[in-house]
């Protein structure tokens, strides 16, 4: 059915509804639609529901609005909800003026034709680190600019390692890491926790090991890939990692680490603030690659994008809003609140100057790799889904790592 026919049906339903609803609706309430909003009101959707109306983030948005001479209407969504809400709103011609989304979603929304390119919206992305910007690029076009970045590394508990007699400097590759875990277990403590849940989070956490083995996302069944999954499987089998990782979100995994029993935890930049509160001494090392060196970790973090509007006159103001949100001063503030690393070298240096503990994280972010990079774009979601399924199958014991990844690869095709 074409669009106009759909419209007709909707219109018919709507007229009918209007008759009855008129009776129940004493006040029809404020409209949240961009279409309904006047030229002085701009809508912003973000995935930060933890920030309420009185937060610095909300004030920053209002401030940028005032600067651009418009009123801001902000709505915060749960991040897993936002993709669908954005698609639904675009379908109904009700997209927000500014949309802040998780970076791997950008290629999906771009594919859907929801987002404008930087050619159209005139955003300046010249200062952004290229490896971070890559997550927002597909088909040679750029669809937004990162507001901040994060990635994964290994947190470790100094007391636990000391008790087990492990020198963290000895952990250089998978072999030495496994040896350290064995010592920790002997000392009566728990080895490592991570998240292998059957969602994008699980893939996100598996990727440093996957890439660290030398495997590529285009070949899930390579020997290197099997070796990465076997590493995890082996840890579970030997009791170095708890069985609960199969169902752990990154928050759950962090809570396990925070109990103080675990030597290592794979987790993200955003846990820094919680690590300070944990009540024990901790350190951070990059995820090691299979045979030494640092593994590439995936980039996390959100992009500021500008959805397509019917009224192209709105872009000029939107561009002002986004530039305000992503200017150096505001990036510094936002990324400090979010516990993220800034996307530009200039601000990263300021962050390290203010907080030296961020140094390893800045290095990790600079070495990190976008999940949708390598022009995978919308192929990535399919690959990722098969990857987390394979991880789940192997860890739960319903298939060997080789078979699990083999069927994953054939399912991608």
């Amino acid at each position: 059915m074409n669009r106009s026919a759909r419209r007709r049906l909707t219109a018919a339903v709507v007229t009918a509804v209007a008759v009855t609803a008129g009776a129940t609706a004493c006040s029809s309430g404020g409209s949240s639609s961009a279409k309904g909003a006047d030229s002085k009101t701009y809508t912003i959707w973000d995935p930060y529901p933890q920030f309420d109306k009185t937060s610095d983030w909300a004030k920053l948005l209002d401030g940028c609005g005032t600067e651009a001479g418009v009123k801001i209407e902000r709505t915060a969504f749960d991040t897993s909800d936002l993709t669908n809400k954005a698609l639904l709103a675009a379908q109904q011609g009700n997209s927000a003026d500014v949309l802040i989304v998780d970076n791997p979603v950008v290629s999906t929304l771009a594919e859907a034709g929801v987002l404008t390119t930087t050619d159209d919206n005139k955003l300046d992305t010249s200062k952004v680190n290229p490896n971070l910007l890559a997550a927002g690029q597909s088909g040679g076009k750029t669809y937004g600019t990162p507001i901040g970045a994060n990635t994964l590394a290994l947190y470790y508990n100094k007391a636990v390692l000391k008790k087990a007699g492990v020198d963290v400097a000895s952990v250089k590759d998978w072999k030495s890491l496994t040896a350290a875990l064995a010592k920790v277990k002997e000392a009566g403590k728990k080895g490592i926790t991570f998240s292998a849940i059957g969602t994008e989070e699980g893939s996100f956490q598996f990727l440093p090991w996957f890439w660290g083995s030398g495997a590529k996302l285009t070949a899930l069944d390579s020997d290197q890939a099997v070796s990465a999954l076997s590493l995890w499987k082996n840890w579970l089998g030997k009791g170095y990692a708890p069985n609960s990782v199969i169902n752990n979100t990154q928050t759950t995994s962090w809570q396990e680490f925070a109990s103080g029993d675990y030597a290592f935890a794979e987790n993200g930049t955003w846990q820094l603030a919680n690590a300070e509160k944990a009540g024990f001494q901790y350190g951070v090392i990059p995820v090691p690659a299979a045979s030494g060196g640092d593994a590439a970790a995936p980039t996390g973090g959100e992009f500021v994008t500008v959805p397509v509007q019917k009224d192209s006159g709105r872009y000029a103001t939107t561009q002002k809003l986004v530039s305000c949100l992503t200017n150096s001063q505001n990036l510094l503030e936002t990324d400090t609140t979010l516990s993220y690393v800034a996307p530009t070298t200039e601000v990263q240096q300021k962050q390290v100057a203010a907080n030296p503990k961020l140094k390893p994280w800045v290095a990790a972010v600079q070495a990190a790799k976008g999940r949708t990079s390598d022009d995978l774009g919308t192929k990535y979601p399919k690959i990722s889904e098969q990857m987390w399924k394979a991880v789940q199958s192997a860890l739960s014991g319903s298939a060997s790592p080789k078979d699990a990844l083999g069927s994953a690869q054939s399912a991608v095709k």
Partner: protein
Amino acid sequence: MTHAPTIPKRRNAAWVKTSLGVLLTAVMLFPVYWMLNVSFTRDQDMRKSPPDLFPTHGTFEGYRAVLDEQLPYLGTSLVIGLGTVVLTVALAAPAGYALAKLRPRGGGVLGFLLLVAQMVPGIIMAMGFYAIYLQLGLLQSVPGLIVADSTLAVPFAVLIFTAFMSGIPGELIQAAQMDGARALRTFWSIVLPMSRNSVVTVSLFAFLWSWSDFVFASTLANGGAHEPITLGIYHYIGNNNQQWNAIMATAVVASLPATVILVLAQRYVAAGVTAGAVKD
């Protein structure tokens, strides 16, 4: 009522029953207790192994956050819940009466459609409502959410009313078989009072469903001036991190007033049934 022959034995049996009832309720509510326990737990003890049965190192952090931020939403939830109850009963009771007692041609098909209607996944319903409300400007409005929440309960209510009202003896209805006006009067003065049990049942569930609804609230009311309490949970689900003690605390705070309403309602129901008998 028990039918024990002697009085002391009966009293004994009653005590056994009460203790058994308390025990069963305790088993049933153990997960709720666990939620309460987590709501008081410090971050570092959340995944302690083995877990603490009581929040020995309790923290009120979760509650402090919730009480500071969430209380205004309770009123909205209450209005929406009561609105849903009224709308549901008003729509469903006459329909149940017609399907059970008047049995018009095509009534079976309607009952059938009601069944199908309940199978539409909530998220698809929400997407449909979004499209409709966007055109009507009903997004983020309380009446809009009441109508949406009532779709959770109306098909259920019609089927329940039909099942219960079909038990009302035909003799009572026959006296009023003449015309529509009489049918209405019969409905109002005989059928409805006799269906008190089903009205209460339907009202309970309509209220419960709208109180705990999350899908419609997040699709239709997010960001508005009037958000129900379930959306309060969003404040603690960050993009990378979830604050579980505050999430659980929100659930506790959200369920406390409603629990009081439930208990009071149940007492009223029990009283109402007996009072009805006396009045008759």
